[in-house]
């Protein structure tokens, strides 16, 4: 429990830092959300609307900084993230609520698949070191170096435009009403295959390479040699002795790389016009919709922090040392 509690405190600090950055960046930077909205409707919005807009967008500078900060924290805790300036009367939290399920399903599933498959391949490559899998690694590393969105463009060009195997972007076929019926779910799955393939192919090499390297180092340890010398079956040596230990740094690496992978996946959504957070982000950026941008930043950060906490729980489960520390105390 001590380990988990310490990590929990760390994530709370990280969340607080993110919230505070989110509060101070707009106040330190020269740009202005209100002026962005005003310039969108020249002539329609009178200068007198300035104050009202400020209050509405939650960027009003009324009261002391400390007072504003407190009001901001209270707002965020009620999921009140202000009003989007590009899709004007819509609440940021409503827009996020519509986009999150799409992204969470697609990016979440694809990332987990990539991690599991990549780790399994890494175990094999590390064990059969110098084998066939090792020889394809440079090719996979090339895939890893390709920007997600560019790889997405290529896949779209080949599979959707040339061969018409997959649909060209969007989250579901036009004309369907989103809901829990098979037409819609089937269409949504069909439309998510190519984006998912992009994420898996571009991120798998990283997990594989990392696992292979840790695995090779672990195999050199005396206890693995001893296990082999005892004549244990290979499968037992690989999974119970080598891979289980090699998995711990791999999981930690997963937590740290998650933010990067998710960010890349978001940019990729833009290419596919996938109705998730990434597309929302593009809209926010291109129309200077600061409240929406900040809301997206908070949502992504909190999701990544939560995922890291879950990973820590898995580490405690997998690593007796993390549990033993509390006994020792």
């Amino acid at each position, binding site marked *: 429990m001590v380990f988990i509690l310490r990590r929990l405190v*760390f*994530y709370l*600090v*990280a969340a607080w*830092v*993110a919230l505070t*950055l*989110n509060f101070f*960046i*707009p106040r330190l*930077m*020269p*740009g202005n959300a209100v002026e962005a909205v005003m310039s969108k409707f020249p002539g329609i919005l009178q200068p007198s609307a300035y104050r009202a807009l400020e209050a509405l967008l939650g960027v009003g500078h009324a009261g002391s900084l400390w007072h504003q900060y407190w009001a901001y924290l209270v707002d965020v805790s009620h999921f009140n993230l202000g009003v989007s300036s590009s899709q004007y009367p819509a609440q940021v939290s409503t827009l996020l609520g519509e986009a999150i399920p799409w992204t969470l399903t697609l990016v979440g599933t694809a990332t987990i698949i990539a991690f599991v498959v990549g780790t399994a391949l890494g175990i094999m490559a590390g064990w059969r*070191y*110098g084998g066939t899998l*090792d*020889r394809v*690694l*440079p090719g996979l*590393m*090339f895939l*890893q*170096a*390709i*920007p997600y*969105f*560019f790889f997405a*463009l*290529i896949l779209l*060009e080949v599979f959707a*435009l040339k061969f018409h195997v997959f649909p*060209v972007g969007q989250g579901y076929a036009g004309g369907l009403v989103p809901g829990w019926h098979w037409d819609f779910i089937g269409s949504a799955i069909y439309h998510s295959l190519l984006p998912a393939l992009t994420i898996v192919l571009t991120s798998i090499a990283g997990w594989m*390479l990392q696992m292979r*390297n840790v695995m*090779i*180092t672990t195999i*050199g340890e005396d206890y693995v040699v001893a296990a082999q010398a005892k004549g244990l079956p290979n499968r037992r040596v690989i999974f119970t002795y080598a891979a289980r230990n090699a998995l711990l740094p791999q999981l930690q690496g997963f*937590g*740290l790389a*998650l*933010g*990067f992978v998710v*960010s*890349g996946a*978001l*940019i990729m959504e*833009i*290419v596919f016009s996938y109705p998730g957070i990434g597309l929302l*982000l*593009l809209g926010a*950026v*291109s129309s200077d919709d*600061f409240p929406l*941008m900040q809301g997206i*930043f908070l949502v*992504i*950060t909190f999701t*990544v*922090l939560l995922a*890291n906490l879950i990973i820590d729980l898995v580490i405690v489960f997998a690593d007796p040392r993390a549990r033993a520390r509390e006994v020792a105390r």
Partner: protein
Amino acid sequence: MTVTLPISVDPASLATEDAVPGRWRRMPTKAKVGAVVLGFFVLAAIIGPLVTPYDPSYQNPSPALSMAAPSAAHLLGTTETGQDVLSQLLIGIRLTLELAVIVGVVATALSVIVGVAAAFLGGIWDELLSLVSNVFLVIPSLPLLIILLGYLPQKGQLATIAVLSGLGWPWGARVIRAQTLAIRNRDFISAARETGEKTWRILAFEIVPNEVSLIAASFVNTVLYAIGASVALAFIGLADLNSWSLGTILYWAEGQQALQLGAWWWFVPPGLAVALMGAGLVLLNTGIDELGNPRLRDASSASRIAGRWLRPTDPTPVLQEVQQRRTGLAGFLHSFSRSSLLDQSQAGDTL
């Protein structure tokens, strides 16, 4: 029965290998490939802008040159507005690489300062600096970059460099801190302290030189991050869209529906350039890793000894093990060779 292994090391050949070309030859293949690919792009970045066939921003009004396929006049075709893609690409490689290298230098310097300071000062400073770097490691950087750049009024090269450097140091700092902690208590540091060396001198001349390989790896990683992040940011429009970097070319290509209109020459070359630069850096980094940790070297560094692939880190082979398994025709042919005399197949085992 004592048999020597059929490998001979000629002392003369070892001596010559210490010359510089020998060092290059002994580098892992991956590092060599990476260095060559990167060298190509560095050359392109230096020479490219001098030899661009056209002004990259010049919009040729001729309707025939709107999204024209590659031809002799325009080697990589033209954009929607008749701009020459090759010229844009050459300038773009320069701008992107320039940005990435500057970010690499600044962010790596920051991470060395923070990492060494945390490990060397210890106590509350260490706790504080480690906490800050861990927090910034776990907060996803791209969304933060986006709001930072979004609020900046000018989104030029300088703003991007500042923002990317400001968020690119935590990973390196963490690695360098760990390494500094490991060597802080070594004898040579204590010796330096005993002889009355000043702290800054110990840091600059004893500790940092011992971390050069780590700093190099951290630099390569940071350059990789800077390329990826700057291209992604430009792709969503957070850059000076009137300048030509690889990301802005992709931004315009995507915005003008180059993909849907089949103008592959517009978006494939810049994307491929990014991918190749990235792959070169990844290969270089893996090569540096392998140089430091021979275990990681792949099959290419293994040498074939008596028909079995052996890696440098394998235990010295026992002859019994070295005997190869030959079956069928290969075994039959082998029985005519001189090395078959070394076989112990008369012992009765059917290998």
